[in-house]
């Protein structure tokens, strides 16, 4: 299978939330609980892997995992519970998870959500219906969309389609494919007539994939181990030797002194 991607066309979305319903049904997520602090149900949660954000001007933007090509969560997870499949989706293996929530810290789009109210909690996020697309089906949300506002296909074809839409109706769209190059490219792309910076933690994410930033530090580890080991042993050896030499000198000096004293004694005698 070629790497796949999802394209969401914000201009087509009517905010009907059919995608949310389909996702809930597919994964048996059940009813939502309002966010503790907001008292509202308006963002992703452990019972809502995709959601519709209402923006001023009657625009509706679907928020979901972006399935980054070089995903921060994948590089952050210390047990490999988050994995980037060669097909594109970033999937989560709850059997490996230890619940450190470093993925939630790492994600530049703050996507992963947690079962805060369970004694045995897991991380929740969109997996692009990986088991479904493996069997040749489309993700549940894509199937449910009545407006074809969100579509699914091989990433290169999807990108070409997005470019074509931007080209044929340049006055309708902002000339940017969100997710084409951000943090090394994502598998969930957007075209829109309103800026979508609010989907990320900070407006205008760079193009550097985040894992590269940690790699810069992590690659120094073996060097540090060797250098420190050598340095410490060396210091220990040199200082130890110097101290032994001092001791030797001291004893030698003491000996000569006693000898001198002896000879002096002898002279006295």
């Amino acid at each position, binding site marked *: 299978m070629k790497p796949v991607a999802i394209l969401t066309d914000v201009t087509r979305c009517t905010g009907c939330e059919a995608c949310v319903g389909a996702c809930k049904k597919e994964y048996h997520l059940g009813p939502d609980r309002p966010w503790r602090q907001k008292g509202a149900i308006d963002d992703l949660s452990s019972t809502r892997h995709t959601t519709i954000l209402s923006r001023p001007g009657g625009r509706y933007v679907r928020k979901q995992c972006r399935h980054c090509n070089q995903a921060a969560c994948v590089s952050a997870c210390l047990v490999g519970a988050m994995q980037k499949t060669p097909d594109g989706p970033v999937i989560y293996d709850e059997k490996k*998870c230890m619940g450190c929530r470093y993925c939630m810290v790492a994600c530049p789009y*703050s996507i992963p959500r947690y079962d805060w109210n369970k004694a045995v909690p897991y991380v929740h996020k969109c997996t692009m219906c990986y088991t479904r697309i493996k069997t040749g089906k489309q993700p549940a949300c894509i199937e449910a969309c009545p407006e074809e506002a969100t579509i699914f296909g091989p990433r290169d074809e999807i990108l070409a389609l997005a470019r074509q839409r931007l080209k044929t109706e340049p006055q309708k769209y902002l000339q940017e494919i969100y997710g084409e190059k951000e943090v090394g490219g994502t598998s969930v792309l957007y075209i829109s007539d309103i800026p979508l910076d609010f989907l990320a933690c900070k407006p205008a994410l760079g193009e550097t994939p985040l894992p590269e930033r940690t790699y810069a530090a992590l690659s120094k580890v073996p060097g540090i181990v060797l250098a420190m080991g050598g340095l410490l042993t060396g210091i220990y050896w040199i200082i130890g030797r110097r101290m032994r030499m001092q001791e030797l000198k001291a004893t030698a000096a003491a000996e000569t002194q006693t000898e001198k004293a002896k000879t002096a004694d002898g002279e006295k005698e």
Partner: protein
Amino acid sequence: MNRRLRIVKSVLWGFVGVWVVVTVARFLRGLGPTTGLSDAVPWGLWIALDVMAGVALAAGGFVVVATVYLFGLERYRPFVRPAILTAFLGYVAVAVGLLYDLGLPWHIWYPILYPQYQSVLFEVAMCVMLYLAVLALEFAPVALEHPWFGHPIFRGALTVLKKATLVLLIAGVILSTLHQSSLGSLFLIAPYRLDPLWYTPIIYVLFFISAVGLGLMTVTMESLLSGWLFGHKIRTSLLSGLGLAASVVLGFYAAIRLGDVAVRGVLGHAFDGSWQGWLFLFETLVCAILPAVLLAVRRIRLSAAGLGVCSAMTIFGMVLNRLSVCILAFERPEGMTYFPAWTEFAITLGIMSAMALVFVFFVENLKVYPREDRESISARPAERLSYDPATLHRLTPESIAATRRYSLIAVTTAAFAVAFLPKEAVFGPQPVPAPVFGIRTVEGFLLKQPGGRQPRIMLASHMEDAPNKGRRVSLMMIDGNRNGRLVLFTHKRHIEECGGEDSCAKCHHQNMPFDENTSCYECHRDMYEPTDIFDHAFHVTHLGGNDGCKECHVSFSQPKMRQTAKACLECHKEMLAAETFAGEEQEKTMTGIAPGYMKALHRLCIGCHRREVKENPQRRSPAFARCDACHGNAGDLDLRRLGPYAHSADSRDGASRLAQAAPLSGGNRSFGDHTSEQSGP
């Protein structure tokens, strides 16, 4: 035993009592009820204080070990054992704190099973695990010296450990260097969330240097504290040596910290008056600049008070630094605040108290401090049998009285903790409190319907064009779903529909936990789920009692159940409005199950809309078949989920007038069409 120690121990046991109770709640009910964490704040106090700051505070171990063994500064040897013990207990505290913070603490060893080498956290985890083992081995000789371990096996182990000292020490120093710095590298992955004053590509260098400085200061503080607690003399001259070293290290740290901020060009941010700027300045001043300057002064360095103040400042400032990186300067969505729940503080304090008690126990029973100090520790007055002079009853000896006192204190604080536990931590998830809007009356009309059907209810504001169509009545509006949205409510009709006077309890019951009456949605089910509307008893009476079975359960051979019965539609065809496409699909077999509210209403409309577009393309644009043909006017999603919106200028004006009379939370919310739907077919 001295009085001071007794009081400190009592307080520590008090914290341990609370800790035990909160521990039970934490593992039974999960993180949500016992912490202030949320999806916007995945890491809170436990990671920042117990892990980040805890590891940094335990840096004293490797700093002193390196000083004495590797750099050969033998005069600092009295600090070695206490520092190793502090570090060991500190790392145990880190591990225990992690067990609380991890969602699945029984998977804590999984990094060994499923290593993922690209992760900084993997490196930290492995280093902390190994270093904990190294510290245990470094401390083991102290324990093995005790006469309890007189067996030759233990003696053998002791000699082996003593021979391996150098390897252990070097390994310990390397592991410490790695994970002290890597705790900083953890945040390299979050450049967009950590404030630029703290996010720097060399954050790991800063973390390491600050850990060294902090380590020197914690050893000082620990030495001062134990001197105060156990009453042995304080080695001010030695401590001043540590102070001088700390002064150099902290000065170096401050230079790099400020230099880094300046080189990256965010120094302006520090002075722009933002709270992050102030926090940065305060933190750097308190943790590094002030102590470095003060400790450079010989007189301050040589006084116990000066050392105490400087080490306290460094410890406070560095802990604040870790808190900043982890929580304070870490970006959160607007309006999402984090303040730790008291249970989080209780766990942190409890772990620290437990470790402090273990520390005291080791100090009292093992050769942790040099001999001259131990004499003052073990100098207990010989216990004599004492009698109450008045009654001549024998008094409880101190060894028993102390145990009783500590148990009493721990049990008492535990009881208080139970009383103050959050409701969710005891009873599980609680309904979110929502204020109920008061009942309101509005003018309306009852329109007679043909064929003896229930009269149709209309709002007066919708009927201005034809005021004399029906009987003018006062209608009640209630906030039945407790979402601030008032809907028309016909009490009388509800009584009739629900089965007369006896049915009050259906809504007004008093016995459901946390609920005083049934919300509308509990009967008028939500938008997505189908609802069971089949009334078996009703059918039995109307089909002639038991003889009527075969009307629906056609086949005798099959068991009599819903799946095998005749579909409702076969009898009730006329109940559906013409041209709807309800019942076309799987509903034919879904006997007795009504489709969800949304589905039902969609099916009443969407079919015709689509057909219209197909058949009359010149009259209807494709937009007529799109969702926003009906759902276009709504401002917020929740409303749109409820139902389509009125398009006529009339009704909208009416609604806005109503809203002006008594503004609802949303302002221009319109409810006209809901009511007409409710009273519609």
